[in-house]
Each structure stands twice: as C-alpha cells, then as structure tokens.
C-alpha cells in the first residue's frame, strides 16, 4: 500500500500464488525460527489526541516467544515465553504480569501482535490475499476467528524479496492503528534468557487481568 502511494504498481496475487508464498514462508520459518530486528512504530490510539512514535528492538522465536524493548523517554520491556507476559516500566519500577493460554482476550491480542513476526497459522486464522508491489509482496489478513475479529479489523504485512517482514499495519475495530517498520533483520540463534524476565528487586508488580 505504501509502495503504491510511492507510484509502484500493485499486482494482485492469485490464490495459488498466495498459497505457494505461504508455503515458502513456512519452509523459511522452519529453517530459521529466530529473528531480531530494529523497529520504528507509530500508534494512533483513540484515547490520545496525537499519534505516538516509538522505536526499539524486537526478538522473536517461533512459535510464540518474543521480547520488545522500547527506548527513549518512556522506555519499556515486554517479554513473553508463550505462557507469561511481562511488561516492565524501568522509569516507574513497575511491572504488569499476565498469564496467557487460558483463552483470555489477551491471547487473541498476542496472536494479532505477533502475526507479523511469526507468519504462522495465517490461513487458519485469517483470510489472506496478496499483491505484488515492485519486488515487495503485501499480504492483507482479515481475521476469520471471532475472538481475533474483536481485536483486529485488518493486518497488512509487507515482505521484501528475502521474505523478511519489513512493515506491518494493524487496524483495530476501535479505530486504533499501529504501523511498524522493521530493519536490520538477523536470524542468528537467540539465548533462552532473552525470553525470560525476572523483575528487578523493588519492582511493584500488578496483575491487571487477575491470576
């Protein structure tokens, strides 16, 4: 979509092409399940008058482990090992703790959040269409599952010729929009400790969604 705006012609992909592409992505993920990249993000949130810009680094290991570190004036660290999710605010010495995989609404949120990184189960969870824009491919994902539909209206994923995710654009039903661009992709092995989080001493821990 962004490339279209820049004057690059968009060619829709046939469903066979999309299927083949998803197959290639699966194969690629099987051989390189790890990813780390820098990111820049712009969020339009209905609770705020202005969009928020942030940047940082993300680490991901298929199928569902990730770590996101936001730098700048309002730093935060988000870590998930697939079972637990921690969000730590160093400035306030406080952390939020969430339990995943209990069919909570948060599960769908995390699925949506990591869809752009994991690129897994896309056909099962989303109706997928694709376009070729120059040497890039843009996949448009519309959720099939009602629990996902409550959180996500549409997700666009832009892939470069090496099948690296370089941009995601997430539109939520409440009007919120998150556009993230990824650079400096690296598929090196990641240490297990990256996806672990131990709150520093003195951290005030809250569990906003209960146990």
């Amino acid at each position, binding site marked *: 979509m962004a490339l279209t705006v820049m004057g690059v012609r968009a060619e829709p992909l046939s469903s066979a092409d999309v299927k083949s592409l998803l197959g290639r992505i699966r194969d690629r993920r099987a051989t390189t399940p790890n990813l780390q990249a820098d990111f820049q993000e712009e*969020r339009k*949130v*209905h*609770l*705020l*008058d*202005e969009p*928020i810009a*942030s940047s940082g680094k993300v680490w991901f290991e298929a199928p569902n482990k990730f770590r*996101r570190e*936001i730098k700048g004036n*309002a730093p*935060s660290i*988000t870590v998930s090992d697939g079972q637990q999710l921690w*969000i730590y*605010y160093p*400035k*306030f010495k*406080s952390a*939020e703790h*969430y339990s995943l995989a209990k*069919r909570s*609404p*948060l599960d769908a*949120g995390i699925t949506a*959040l990591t869809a752009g990184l994991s690129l897994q189960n896309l056909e099962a969870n989303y109706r997928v269409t694709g376009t070729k824009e120059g040497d890039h491919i843009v996949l448009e994902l519309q959720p*099939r*599952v*009602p*629990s996902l539909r409550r959180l996500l209206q549409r997700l666009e994923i832009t892939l470069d010729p090496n099948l690296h995710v370089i941009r995601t654009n997430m539109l939520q039903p409440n009007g919120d929009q*998150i556009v993230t661009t990824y650079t400096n992709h690296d598929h090196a092995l990641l240490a297990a400790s990256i996806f672990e989080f131990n709150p520093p001493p003195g951290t005030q821990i*809250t569990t*906003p*969604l*209960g*146990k």
Partner: protein
Amino acid sequence: MQFSKTVARLITERRALMWATVIAIAAGCFATLVTRLRLDTEILDLLPRGFPSVEGLKVYNNEFEQTRELTFALLCQPEDIDKLEEFAPKFVERLHSQPWCVRVLAGSPLETPQGIADLQNIALPLLLNLDPDEFDRAISLLQPQRIQERLQQLRQAIESGSPRPEIELTLDPLGLIMPALKPFAGNAALESDQPLTSPDGTMRLFPVVTNQSSIGAFECQRLMKQVNAFRVSALQDWDGGKLEMLVTGRSAYVSEVSLSMRHDIYVTLLGSVALVGAVFFIGFRRWLPLLAMGFSLLLCCLIALAVGLLIFHQLNMVTVGFCAILVGLGVDFAILIYGRYQQARNEGATHAAAIADSVHHLGRAVFFGALTTAVGFLALVLSNSSGFIQLGVLIAIGISAAGVLMTTIFFLFIPTRTKPRQSDWIFSAVKTYVARMLHRPRSVLAISAPILIILVTIAVLPQIPLTFVANARSMEPKNSRAGRALSLIMEKMPVRWEPVLGIVRASNEQQLHDYWKAIAEHWEQLRKSGTIKSFSTPYALALSPQNIERNRHQLATIDFAASRTALQSALAQNRFSTAAFVSAFQFLDQLRVAAAQDYQIKPWRGELPQSSAWWFLIDRYFGHDPLLTAGFVTTNQPVSTQQQKNALARDLPVAGIPITLSGWSYTLTDLVPWSHRQLLFISALMAIFDASLLALLYRDLRLWLIQVVTLALAIAAMIASMKLLQVPLNLLNVLAFRLVLAIGVDYGIYVLLVWQRSTDIARDLAGVIKPVVLAGLTAIAGFGSLGWAHNPTLSGLGIACALGLFWSLGATIFFTLPAAVAAEPKLSDEGLGKPELQHEHV
C-alpha cells in the same frame, strides 16, 4: 354373636345396607380428593427434617432468585469451535427475543459497554461502603499530584502496548471504581472457577433468568414447553456439524420430576394391578373374586388418599408409590381369605358358613399381618423425611383398611353358587412339597440351609462391596434430560463442581456487613492456607451505614475544584483525548454532591436495570429479603466424604456468626450418617418389635428362635443379592430393610400359627402355603412394579423390597417350616397317607 357370623349375616342378608355403606365411603373419599388434592413436587421434602444443611438448601431454593435460572449449553464438534463462537451471539439474540427470557449472561459483563456503564452507576455507594483505610487510600487518588502521576504512567503503558490502559481508562478513568470493587475481587476467583466456555472450546454456557411467576410444578411444565418449542428454531442457520442444545436448571428438573410422577403413577399402578391380578387369577382361576379384590383395593387406596390429604393437606410425589405397594400388600389378605373360603366351599359349606369360617380362622392372622405391616410402615415416621412419613402413614391407613375390607365387603362380589375346580396344579405341587417336607424335613434343610449360609457369607464379606450412592443424581428421574445436560456440563468443565453454600441472615444492614466482613477475612485466611480453593461473598455489596456516613464526612475534606483542574491539566499534558474522560468528570461531580450534609444515598439495587447482566452475580448472593444472603466456597476437591464435610463444618463458620452451611453435595454427605442410622438403628427397632410380637404370639422358644433366624437369613440374603446384582443402596432405599422385616414376618406368622395350632397338619399346611406363596408373589410383584418408576428413589426402594420379600418367602417355605417340623415333629410317617389329605381342597 361372633364377629365372623355377624360379617356373614351382613354380607348375605343386608347386602343393600353394605352397598350403601360402600357407596357412602367412596363418595366421601372422592369429595375429599376433588376438593383438597394438592401435590407437592418438592424433591427436598424427601430429605429428612432437622438438618441445617437440608433447611439451608430449602431456603436457597425457595428464597433466592436463582431458582428462576435455566442454564443453556451449546455443544459442538471440535472442528466447529470457531463456528460456535460466531454462532453464539445469534443464539443469545434469539434467547433475548423469547417472551419467557428476562436476561441472558453471554460473557463477562465487563466485556460489554452496558455492563461497564451499569457498574459505573453503582460505583458511588460501593466506594462509600469501603472500610475507612481502604476508602482513604482510594480517594488519595484525587490529590492533584496523584492524578498527574497516574495519567503519565498510563500514557507510557499505552506506548508500550500494554492492554491495561485500555481496560482501566474505559472502566475506571478516575481510578476509584477498581478500589470500590476490590472486596469484590474474591468473586473473580469464583467466576474463573465457573467458566462459561469449556477448556476445549466445544461447549458454551448461557445462564438465563426466566419470567416464571412461581416455581410450582405446573408453572415449570409450562415454561419448559415453551423452551422445548424454542429448541426447534434455536439452531437455525447453524452450518457446522452436530450441534447439541442442552438445558438444565431447577425448572427443567421440576418439570421432569412432576411429569415423571404422572408416568410413575400410571406405570407402577397398572403394572402392579396387572401382575397381582395375573398371580391371583393363576392361583384361583376366578374372575369375580379378582374383581372383588380390585374393587376393595381401589377403595383402600381412596380411603388412604382421602385420610392422608386430611392429615397432611398435600401429598408428596414419593407417596404416588403407595398405591402400587398397597395393591401388592393388600392382596395378601384377599388371597388368604378367599383361599380359606374356597376350601370351605369345596368341603360343602354354604356361602354364609364359608364366609364365617374364613373370617373366623384367618381373621386373627389378617389382623396381625395388618398390624405388623402397618407398624412397619408407620416406622417411616422416624425417618424425619416428610415424603416418606406420608408414604408410611398412607400405607398404614391403606393396609388397615384392606384388613377390614377384605374380611367384609370383599364377599359382596362372591357369588353364592360356585363350581369346585377340577384341577389345581399349584395346590397339587404344594401338597407334594408338604408331604415330603413333613416326612423328611432335614432333606429340605440340607438344600436350603447351605444356600442361605452362602448368601450370609456373601453378605458379610467385605471383599464384595455393597455400593452406597449418596449424590444428587441418585435422586433425579431416570433418563433425565436436565440431568444429562448437567452431567455433560460437569464432564466438559470439571472445575465447575458445586460450591459449598454459607447462608447468613442478619437483622439489619450494618450487622450483615459486619458478619460478611468477618467471614470474608476468615475465609481469606483459609484460602491462603490452602484449606479451600477460593470463595466469594456479598461483602462488597452489603452496605454499612456506619462506613458510608464516615466516608461521606471524609469526602467533604476533598478540594474537588483542584482535582478537576489537575485532571484537565494532566489530560492536556499527556495528550489524552478529553472525550475519553467524560465519565471521570461525571464521577467527580457525583462525589462532590455525595459529600453534602443532607445527601441521601440511593439504594444501589435501584440503579441497575433489570436486564443488567450483573444481576446474575447479585442474585447468587441476595435472597428476596436483602438481609438473607449467601456466600460460596469452592473446595479443593468435590465434597464427597464425611471427613471433608466435617472439616468444612469445623473450619468455615466464624464464632458468634450464625451461618448455615449447605449445597447439594455437602447436604447429601451430611445425610450419610442419618441414612446409616435408618439402616441400622431403626431396622433394629423394627426387628425388636417383630421379635417381641412373635414371642407373644407363639409363646414357644424354638418356634420364636426359628423365625427370628429366618428373618436374619432373609435380610442377609437380600444384602447378598443386592451385592451380586449390583443394586446400590441410596440415602432412601435403606428404608427397604425395615419394610422387608415388617412384611416378611407375616409369612412366617401365617405358616407357623397353622403349624402350631392345627390338628390336621398336612391338610392345613397345604391350605395355608398356597395362599402364602401367592401372597408373597403378589407382594413381590407390587414392589417389583416400582422398578418401572422413573423416580430412582421409588424404583430403588421397590427393587430392594422385592428382593427382600423374595428371600423372606423362600426362607419361610424352605427353611422356617422344615426347621419347625424338624424341631417339633408332630406327624408320624404313617399319618402322611391318611385319606383326608388326598381329597381335601380338590
């Protein structure tokens, strides 16, 4: 004039008077039934009175709104989970559109805008209700600096993608509602233990409150008729595989129980009449005596029902079984009396003389038979269960009436002329047996005694267990749809086991608040120590006038203008949208108004719309009387043992606070000792009564001993057969033992009295054994027909009694009699060939 002769004269010479009397009695009974018949379908009335847990269950069932709740469940195939999620809102919409549906719980109320708005509406009284420390901590958030800090933190949380700010700012933009609901937080634990979706996603639950005006049987049937009509169209547009709609709840159960009552009345009564009639006809090959017996038994049933209604004013469902039992028992007298009458006629007596002879010779046996049976059933009064007390009293009345009617009006139907029967294979077989038994009693004992001893061994062997079922399912109708639905729900959601109820009634609002505060603190300690899994109480919703007054004074110290300015400034500084904080400003205004001296706080119940999903939560806690409340404790495991129940009874109460612990599992576990007491103590009392009566009757130690041993052997054989046939004991069919004692003893009395007093042993024994066998078979048939009842309590009782009577009859014929003959030989070998034995009764 002798009673027997008076009866004979009345029957033969004053028939019009007798008929007029019969018609008058029948008309009186009919009039009573028509004008007073009221049926009680309360299944809890089957449980004994005097147990707080039972009373608690009744209070919760009758005085809490949740009794109008039905649980709908949709169960799909594993591959259709997403389709079910998509279909659920359509189903909820259809439920909403039903005229009988008041509200539906489709998910957490916090997930809907209306649910959040409802909560915000009642936030003020709940905030003011907080204990002083908590309230002061909460309103410290109104300090300008705290407002600024909080919003800055939320802003950062939004930047890091946390879900918290979205939830918090939507529900509680000022940060005061969550503290107000903090005491409510314990409830969240219960809600997560009682989920609405199964872990595998194939089942979704939809609790529905209906508009039922009462929880009576007919009202429940009417509602379930509408619900069943809804079933037809409810699943339209479903395009997946098999989707099952299940419905359970009190109304579903009451409807099924009351309908099964009707089935049970027809099936058991018709079954009993058919079986008993067949046995009688096979025994005597006469239609008119059969008609006489049927008419007399019908009149007995009418009399018992009418008198029962006059005594109890309404009859419980379990009493419907009395007719079938009465038919099975009352027919014994007809068989005995008619057997003797027929014998006398065959020997050449006139109609009147034969009547006088049968009443004269068997009146005493009938009297004692009626007495022991009536006392046996009257002993049900000691069960403390109103349903079984009624059953006992009705049968006692009925059997007494049967004793009178079978020796009087029964003869009105007997023709004055009757042809002797040409052949009677039953009598011939009995004669052959009697002859052999009198000749070689030990050979009979050599077969019967080992069999009985083996059965006694089985009965006492702990390796072959006698199952004792003490759960709610043992009391619900067989093939119950509501029961199956509940069991599938429990299977799919094993964490949904029933919590223990704690019912608390207070005399005023402050006391209620104080009670629950103390209980909640105590239960929290138990939770922390792992004694219980979780709990929920109405503590947060029980308003404390003292706290409210104190907190209102504290509110007056707040500078609301400064808070308002700080909020505006913090919103601007952190670039928050002012539109998202409209409710925060509104709540600030509400707090300012509430601080005024003359402010009257509105009852929070009035602020919630009737359709609010929060009522599902509130109705669990509050009865129709707001001072009657319930709290819930989820145990670590379902309550099933005495040890668990005793531990809960010891741990859950707080000193000085009257609390009634209840719940189905808890109550049924509580009743197990009662049931054992019924089994042992009251059956023992019955045995003592029987033994005393027998001692009085026989005045012969050996005969007395023989019959007491027979009774013990019969009971042991009954237990052994229940073990081998895997017939479980339940809380109520333990009553069968005393009934078997009461009825089984009669067979021995009939036989041994003849043995003791007859001068023509072979003739008289053969004459009595045939009616006793027929009487036993009819009683077995009468009780056995209860096995067809849908009500497992009734069918369990019937099957247990039928087994017990079978062994009582068998032991009487094949053990008591040969043992008596062996102990006191009365007949020489030569005597067996006497001519009178050859021709009598033929």
